[in-house]
């Protein structure tokens, strides 16, 4: 970790490809695996064994480390990072977003970027699919529901449709 700023779960910068708490869990698991591998390598070196290569990291973890200016060289830093990421997974605000069709990574990344810039920097998104929405999105925050789907729009304008039908019937009679 850098010496200038102490990174905690409250000031982590999350890359756009880390969308949900599942992605955070995946980061934790990968760091734990790297920690085990590096600790084993250190013990082997101390025991006089050959030096082994640092295990290859995934793109998500590499991006996360670079955006937060972190390294995994020190075992204490790795332990702190694992702890903070676990805290982040438990405490980060979660927004449930339901779409009419399955969301692709690119769209989710754009939405995540907007949410983190506009609402909360550590917000996580849990996506779902409900074809009855037709279009738009159904957003559920910790305490509220925001139905921004086409279904809601049509339901809100049903009265106007009935009025138009009555008018049509009157003109046909």
């Amino acid at each position, binding site marked *: 970790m850098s010496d200038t700023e102490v990174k905690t779960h409250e000031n982590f910068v999350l890359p756009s490809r880390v969308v949900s708490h599942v992605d955070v869990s995946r980061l934790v698991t990968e760091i734990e695996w790297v920690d085990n591998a590096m600790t084993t390598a250190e013990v082997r070196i101390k025991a006089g064994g050959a030096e082994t290569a640092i295990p290859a990291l995934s793109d998500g973890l590499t991006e996360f480390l670079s955006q937060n200016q972190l390294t995994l060289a020190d075992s204490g830093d790795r332990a702190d990072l694992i702890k903070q990421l676990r805290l982040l997974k438990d405490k980060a605000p979660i927004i449930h977003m339901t779409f*009419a069709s399955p969301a692709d990574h690119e769209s989710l990344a754009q939405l995540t970027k907007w*949410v983190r810039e506009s609402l909360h920097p550590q917000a996580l998104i849990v996506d779902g699919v409900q074809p*009855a*929405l037709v*279009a*738009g999105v159904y957003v559920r925050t910790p305490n509220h529901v925001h139905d921004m789907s086409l279904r809601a729009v049509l*339901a809100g304008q*049903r009265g106007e449709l009935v009025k138009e039908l009555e008018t049509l*019937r009157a003109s046909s009679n």
Partner: protein
Amino acid sequence: MGLFQHKQHSDKKSPMVEVFEYEKNFFDEDFRVGIRDHARLYFEKVIQENVVVFKQDLDEASEAISADLKIRTAEQLDASIARLTIDLKEHITKQLDGQFAEFTKAAKEAQDVALGSLTTSAAALEEQHKQLGTTLQKSIANQSLMLENSFQENMKNMTSIKEANASALESLNRSVDELKNQNEQLTATLEKKIATQEESLMKAFEGNMAQVIEHYLLGALSEQYDLKAQLPAIIQQMEANKQALLDDMKL
């Protein structure tokens, strides 16, 4: 030889002695042995012939005795059998006569007993017949009385049923008239209700038509949009609701 052993001998040889001596000299030991053997053979031959004759005589005598014995025995057996047959016949006849007499006596006694019993039974049956006849006459009289009473009651019932039928018919006629009136009223009411229902159904149809159109639109459009195409609109809507979302995230 023995015939001459007691003859007194004199010093002078008598002719007999001389003959004897001559004979003694003439019939020496060999001659004697020959004579003896010849005599013995002859004797054996004679004896053998006599044995054969004797055997034949003995066989003939045995056969004759056997035949006589058979005849005699048969005669005696026939006589004994005839005598025994006569005795047996007499004995059996006597016993059969005795038994016949006993059977006749027993049959007569049984006949007397059966006759007495039949006489008693006939009297009892006659008495029962009389009693049954009396009972039957009484029963018939009772049944006649009951049937007459029942007939009278049935006649009364029939009269009352006829009266009830007449009143029921009258009531039915009245009900038919009332039903006709009710039917006319119901028809009028139903026509009014049908008109009202038609009107309300038309209104409901108009209301449901909006739902039908909406359902059709939902079904037709739900698979037409992908998320990329909607993304600007979604972000725009979220931007419009940004403050509400922000407030909720800060809670």
